[in-house]
C-alpha cells in the first residue's frame, strides 16, 4: 500500500490550537498543500494576522511574520517590495481583513500587489469570544448583537469578493467553502491558482473561504457545516468573481 493522503510538508508538527471542527485547520492544510505542490515553501513568507489564526506562524513551515491587527496586507506589501522573489501570502480573518484592515485590503488590491490573500470568513470574531464581525449576517446573534444583527444600527455585511472585484488591480477573486469533500477540492484548486498567479506575476489574488466557528456559533462541528450551507452561502454566493486570465468579471 502507498500513502495517498498525509500531512503536507509545509505544515509543522505543532498541534493546532483551534477548537474541534474549526475549519481553519482545513484551510491551513490547503495552503500548505499549495506550497508543497508548487515547490515554494523555501521561498514563501506568510503573514499571520491578529485573530484566532495569529498563531498560524507556528503551523506553517515557511518563514512567517505576525502583523498588527488589520495590517497584514501592508506588511505583505513591504515584504514583497523588499524581496520580489519571495512568495508572499497573508492569512486573515474577517475582522482583520474587512473591519480594522479594510483600508489596507482595498489599497493593496487596488495597487495590484503581487501577493496571495487567504481570507477566512466565518461571520464572527473567534479569538475574542464571538462578537459581531463585518461579515455577520443580518439577524445573526453574537455576543455584541444579542438581539440579532440589526441592520438599522449595525449595518449590513461586507461582501469582500464583490467589493474587490470592482478594482482594476485585482487579478483573481474567488469565494469557496470547505463544507464538503467536493468544495474542499474546489477550494484547494482556487488556493493553488492564487499562488500560481503570484508566481506568474499576475498580481493580487484573493480566495475567500466561507468557514465555520462551531464554538462561537454554539453548534456542533457538523451542525455548523449545515448552518454555513443554509445561511452563509445564500448571502455569500460561491464562485469566481474575477479572473483576469480567463476574462471573468462578475
Amino acid at each position, binding site marked *: 500500500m502507498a500513502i495517498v493522503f498525509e500531512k503536507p510538508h509545509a505544515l509543522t508538527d505543532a498541534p493546532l490550537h483551534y477548537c474541534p471542527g474549526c475549519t481553519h485547520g482545513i484551510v491551513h492544510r490547503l495552503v500548505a498543500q499549495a506550497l508543497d505542490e508548487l515547490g515554494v515553501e523555501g521561498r514563501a513568507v506568510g503573514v499571520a494576522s491578529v485573530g484566532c489564526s*495569529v498563531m498560524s506562524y507556528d503551523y506553517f513551515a515557511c518563514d512567517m*511574520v505576525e*502583523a498588527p491587527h488589520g495590517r497584514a496586507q501592508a506588511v505583505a506589501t*513591504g515584504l514583497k517590495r523588499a*524581496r520580489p522573489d519571495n512568495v508572499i501570502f497573508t492569512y486573515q480573518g474577517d475582522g482583520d481583513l474587512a473591519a480594522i484592515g479594510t483600508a489596507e485590503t482595498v*489599497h493593496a488590491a487596488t495597487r495590484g500587489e503581487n501577493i496571495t490573500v487567504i481570507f477566512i470568513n466565518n461571520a464572527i470574531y473567534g479569538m475574542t469570544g464571538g462578537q459581531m464581525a463585518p461579515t455577520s449576517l443580518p439577524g445573526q446573534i453574537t455576543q455584541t448583537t444579542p438581539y440579532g444583527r440589526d441592520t438599522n444600527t449595525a449595518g449590513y455585511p461586507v461582501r469582500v469578493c464583490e467589493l474587490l472585484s470592482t478594482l482594476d488591480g485585482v487579478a483573481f477573486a474567488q469565494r469557496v467553502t470547505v463544507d464538503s469533500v467536493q468544495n474542499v477540492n474546489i477550494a484547494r484548486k482556487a488556493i493553488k491558482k492564487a499562488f500560481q498567479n503570484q508566481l506568474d506575476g499576475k498580481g493580487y489574488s484573493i480566495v475567500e473561504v466561507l468557514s465555520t466557528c462551531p464554538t462561537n456559533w454554539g453548534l456542533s462541528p457538523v451542525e455548523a457545516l449545515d448552518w454555513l450551507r443554509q445561511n452563509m452561502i445564500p448571502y455569500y454566493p460561491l464562485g469566481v468573481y474575477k479572473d483576469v486570465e480567463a476574462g471573468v468579471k462578475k
Partner: protein
Amino acid sequence: MAEKVLMKGNEALAEAAIRAGCHHFFGYPITPQTELAAYMAKRMPQVGGTYLQAESELAAINMVLGAASAGVRAMTSSSSPGVSLKGEGISYMAGSDLPALIINVQRGGPGLGGIQPSQADYWQATKAGGHGDFQVLVFAPSTVQEMVDLVSDAFDAADKYRMPAMILADGMLGQMMEPVILPEAGEKQPVEKPWAANGHQNKRPHNVINSLYLTPEKLEDLVLERYERYKVIEATEQRAEEYLVEDAELVVVAYGASARVARSAVNKAREQGKKVGLIRPITLWPFPKDTLKAAASHVGKMLTVEMSMGQMVDDVRLAVECKIPVHFFGRTGGIIPTPAEVLGEIDRLLEE
C-alpha cells in the same frame, strides 16, 4: 573627494538614507516633511529602490515592518500627527526586534495643531512611542550636515541593536538649506540578518517574526532581554555636544533647532562677558545623562530651551539629580524662540 552641495534638510535626510543603503521608503504626505517623500519618489527609481505612497501612515509603518522583516533597510517619514498613527507599528517593531528608521519632522500640536516647527513630540519620541515597555533610539540633528550624518548612524545603530530608530527633527530643520558633504553610496557593507523572514530555502528552520507571547514569564523574559540591550546602549551610545561649558556658571541645554537659537544667545552672552555655555543632546534616547551630571558638579544652574511647554527639562532634572536648579524657557505652537528672548532669560537667571 565628496563635494559640498546646498541641500534642504528634508532632501538631505532622503539622500543620506539612500546612500546609507536604504532602498525602501514608505510614506504618506504631511507638511512639513513632504519634500522628503517627493525626493524619494524621484530618486528611488534611479537606484532601483521602492518608493511607495501608502494609503495612510498606519499602512506606511507596517510596510516598513514588512520590509524590515525581510531584512532590508527600510524607512518612513512623517510629521507629528502622522507619527502618532505610526505608534502602533513602532511598538510592534520594538516588540519584534526589527530595525528601521522613522523620521519625525515635528510641527505644533496637539491634534492637527499647526504646520510650523515644534519640539512638542519629545515625550512621544523618548517615552511614549507606542504601548508597552520599550525604547526607540532617538537622534536629534541641529544642522543639515548633522541630518545627513545621523541618518547613517541611526540605521547602523538600529541594525546593531535590532530596534527602531528615530530622527527627531522639526519643520525648521526640514525646510532650511545648508551646504552639506554627502557620503559616497555603498561605503558600508550590509549587515547580516540571519533572523530575517526572507524564505528558508529549505536550508534552515523557519524564522518567525512576532510579538505575541501568551505566557507571561516568556514575555517578561523577552522584555528583560531587551532591557539588557537598552542598558548597553545607555552605557555606550549617549551623545552630546558641549560648548563653552568648562568655566560656565550657567549652561543652556537645548537640542535640534532650539539649540541653534541657544547657541546664538550663548555667543551673545559671552560677548558681554557672561560665563554661559551650551550642552546640546544629540541622542535624546539614550539621554546624555553622563555629560549633564558631570557638568552639574561645576555649573551653578541650567536652563533648558525647547519649542514646547517643557518636556526634555524633566530628563535634565533627573540627569543632574536635583544637585542644581534647572530652569525652563520655551515657546510652543510653532513659534521659534529668538536669541534675544533666550538671552533675556539667561540674564534674569544670572541676576537671581
